[in-house]
């Protein structure tokens, strides 16, 4: 019904969830972002279920999956690249099989969660940034590698309620191989770039936090960055009406990077004593926010880190990353996933399921966490949903338990 009322789709290919994708643009393959183009160009490759690479009926595959799960002492639900409805189904499956549950992006998600659980944080959402932010500090990231339309949809907009969008100050602090071109304003004003390798961000951000707190900092340089530059940055942040400090957990992938994130979030806390600032965690994809959130309200706890060695069967869901597979050696693997999954070795069981937002409807959380958007099937197909398949497996397991 939703499709008849509007021809606009929401793109789940990254955490930004752009909801202005017209059916027409999809049909003509004219999309403003590479991830969206790739997502909507996907087409079914394996229409039927498989056991060890051999085509079988759906019910045979369901039976085989149930049989593996019955024999498993400690299954793991992993990948979990799906939407909220898929996440609910996977939580049900994990309850029925006493499986642990994790996600493709567990390490980057949990890096943020460690900060949340240790100190909490003060954050904002995209519409606030769009209408208020006068200073945007990007720390260790260009965002656009993850969320290509961030500047188009949030920063360089035609109108903002409380600030002049085109006059925003954009500052990049550290990071490797950044694309800072999108940070150039529509009238050609270049962003400020304070270069340092991502690996040096821990000490650089720690010094920035100290400067914002007016703590004495000795020395003139930190990791090649002049302390005077950071002092000027601290002053800019303090003078801002609504400073926004942006990070992407995936771009901070070194040991104890959660401490860098905590320095960012605690810098925000320090700024908010006198002026206004907020943090903004970007990136996000494969439904990571949806799965972590649904897992939390259904179980009362966040998702887990995968521990591949201690599991003797893996249920793998890869709806948004058809090329993603569990580490080699994790066996046996049951893939409930993309019909265009790419296997080097065929899994024990493969059941193609509809990808929400491509082949079926769904609902998904945006990366900023407060907004959930409906997904509509851009290319409706005959594949069962993840929920359908999980229900069939659960029914088979129950029948097996009764037999």
């Amino acid at each position: 019904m939703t499709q008849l009322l509007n021809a606009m789709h929401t793109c789940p290919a990254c955490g930004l969830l752009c909801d202005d994708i017209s059916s027409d643009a999809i049909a003509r393959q004219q999309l403003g972002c590479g991830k969206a183009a790739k997502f909507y160009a996907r087409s079914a490759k394996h229409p039927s279920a498989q056991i060890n690479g051999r085509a079988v009926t759906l019910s045979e595959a369901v039976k085989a999956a149930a049989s593996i799960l019955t024999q498993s002492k400690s299954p793991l639900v992993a990948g979990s690249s799906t939407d909220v409805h898929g996440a609910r189904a996977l939580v049900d499956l994990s309850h029925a099989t006493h499986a642990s549950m994790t996600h493709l992006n567990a390490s980057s998600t949990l890096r943020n969660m460690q900060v949340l659980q240790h100190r909490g944080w003060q954050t904002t959402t995209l519409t606030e940034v769009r209408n208020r932010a006068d200073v945007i500090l990007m720390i260790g990231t260009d965002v656009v590698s993850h969320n290509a339309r961030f500047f188009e949809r949030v920063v360089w907009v035609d109108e903002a309620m409380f600030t002049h969008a085109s006059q925003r100050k954009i500052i990049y602090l550290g990071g490797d191989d950044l694309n800072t071109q999108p940070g150039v304003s529509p009238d050609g004003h270049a962003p400020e770039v304070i270069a340092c390798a991502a690996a040096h961000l821990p000490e650089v951000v720690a010094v920035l936090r100290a400067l914002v707190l007016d703590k004495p900092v000795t020395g003139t340089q930190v990791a090649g960055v002049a302390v005077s530059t950071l002092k000027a940055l601290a002053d800019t942040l303090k003078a801002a009406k609504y400073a926004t400090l942006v990070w992407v957990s995936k771009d901070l992938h070194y040991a104890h990077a959660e401490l860098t994130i905590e320095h960012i979030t605690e810098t925000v806390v320090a700024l908010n004593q006198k002026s206004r600032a907020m943090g903004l965690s970007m990136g996000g994809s494969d439904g990571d926010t949806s799965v972590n959130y649904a897992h939390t309200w259904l179980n009362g706890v966040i998702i887990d880190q995968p521990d591949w060695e201690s599991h003797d069967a893996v249920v793998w869901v890869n709806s948004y990353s058809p090329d993603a597979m569990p580490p080699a050696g994790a066996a046996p693997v049951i893939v409930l996933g993309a019909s265009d999954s790419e296997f080097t070795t065929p899994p024990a069981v493969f059941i193609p399921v509809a990808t929400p937002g491509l082949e079926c409807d769904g609902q998904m959380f945006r990366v900023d966490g407060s907004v959930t958007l409906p997904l509509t099937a851009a290319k409706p197909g005959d594949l069962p949903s993840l929920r359908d398949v999980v229900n069939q497996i659960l029914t088979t397991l129950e029948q097996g338990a009764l037999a």
Partner: protein
Amino acid sequence: MITVLKNAKVVDPAHGKDGVVQDIYIRDGRIVARPSANEKIDEVFDLNGKIVMAGAIDMHSHIGGGKVNIARMLLPEYQEMRRMQEPEAHICGPNCSHHATPNTTDTGMRYIEMGYTAAFEPAILAVNARQAHMEMGDTPMIDKGGYAMLGNDDYLLRLLSQNADQKTINDYVAWTLHATQTIGIKVVNPGGISAFKFNERRQDLDQLHSYYNITPRRILQALSRAVNEVGIAKPLHVHCNNLGVAGNFQTTLDTMGASDGIPMHLTHIQFHSYGLEGDKKFSSAAANIAEAVNKNKHITVDVGQILFGQTVTASGDNMMQHLNAKVANPKKSVIMDIECDAGCGVVPFKYRDQNYVNALQWAIGLEIFLSVDDPWRIFLTTDHPNGAPFTSYPHLIRLLMDKTFRNEAFDKLNLDAQAMSNLKTLEREYSLYEIAIMTRAAPAKLIGLRDRGHLGEGAAADITVYTEQPDKEAMFATPDLVFKDGQLVVKEGKVVKVVWGATHTVKPAFDLAIERDIKQYFDRYHTMQMHNFKISNDQIAEDGRNHVINHTQG
């Protein structure tokens, strides 16, 4: 199929029944008149004079949505406790902290085990309504519903600052009820959440908003009138300015006058009843507040009682929670600005009976309960989880019904706090009939649930059966039987059948022309399209368990 509950001692204030022994007949989920003699009775429960009430209704409990889920994430400390205990096997007392942030399944199970058959999420951020409904949809056993937050959203504040006419406000309010699938409207710290985004730290009732040049009083006038004129039952749900601040009782008294006599509900009033007396400049203003409530018949209140132990407070009031974060325990908090729509603040608290302020907060809540005369205008809440988890309701009921028990608890409090409270001079003990009013009949009437909260013919058969006993905490913690829509779902305090409840909404008529302007606002300023903001009935029912019950009101 006909079920009969024989020899029920009925406490049903909606029909003035206080201990009338009668038989109750149930057919197809409804209470019906005695069937004719030739009709087959399928199931008989002889209750032998056990107390029978309608299922209880929690009119203010944070059970779903963004801030509740953040609260669940925030304290892994709770998770350690979870592993040591069996949450399914018992009902928690006030100190059983892991239940302050139950998952959705536990939320439904704990409620139904206490004989509650509905709970209303009082702070649904309009932009976050989809998430709130997902969580409520995953909450089994009970009916759900929610109040949408307005009054800090830039759309309304722009309307008011441009002197929009009342009809436009009314249309926007009605549109919001439709779009968010809610049954009431709430305002939290009117104007204050927005002002915080402009670096203001306090917003008083008659203080101009620094950007929009309107006062919270104006917001309250506009919204209370809109809610009244669109014709929904639930009065505007008001979380006053200056939450938790010593001396805030004057703001609360002034707020009662802000609607010019139009009904308003002031929520968790305990947190808004603080004076400035004494050495510590923090005192009880419960007497002033209760006197004003008694006098102002257009005002209803719920208490937001605190009980001692660990909890996590989750509020839309990020302005005041940002201040409260200084006393967080454990020391962490989440503060958010959200979508030019609202905000949230999640702050863990540990209420301690030896802490002067906490002890006095406990006493202030009870003083208000005991000093407001009319049980139809005061509601039993802990503002779950902010004052205490809802699982502590049986304990709270005993505090209200049992003066000796209450006074013994009082004697254990911080001595300075004892010296500042008149609680022991209050002799009142609530009756079963009054408890039934404040937990059944009155909330149903307030929210406009005509077929809930009572045991008359035509009512939904949401029924709770208790064994009367001197220990009222034990009585209300473990009902003998609970029926949800006519089905036996709880026996001796244990769930025997899982059911899924419904979501209650109200959808008053409005002029669709407003949607043109709202769409234009979305297109100009938002990061999502208006049609994605609106939630359909189908989406509420999407995973096949929940469904919408819309109420015609007015």
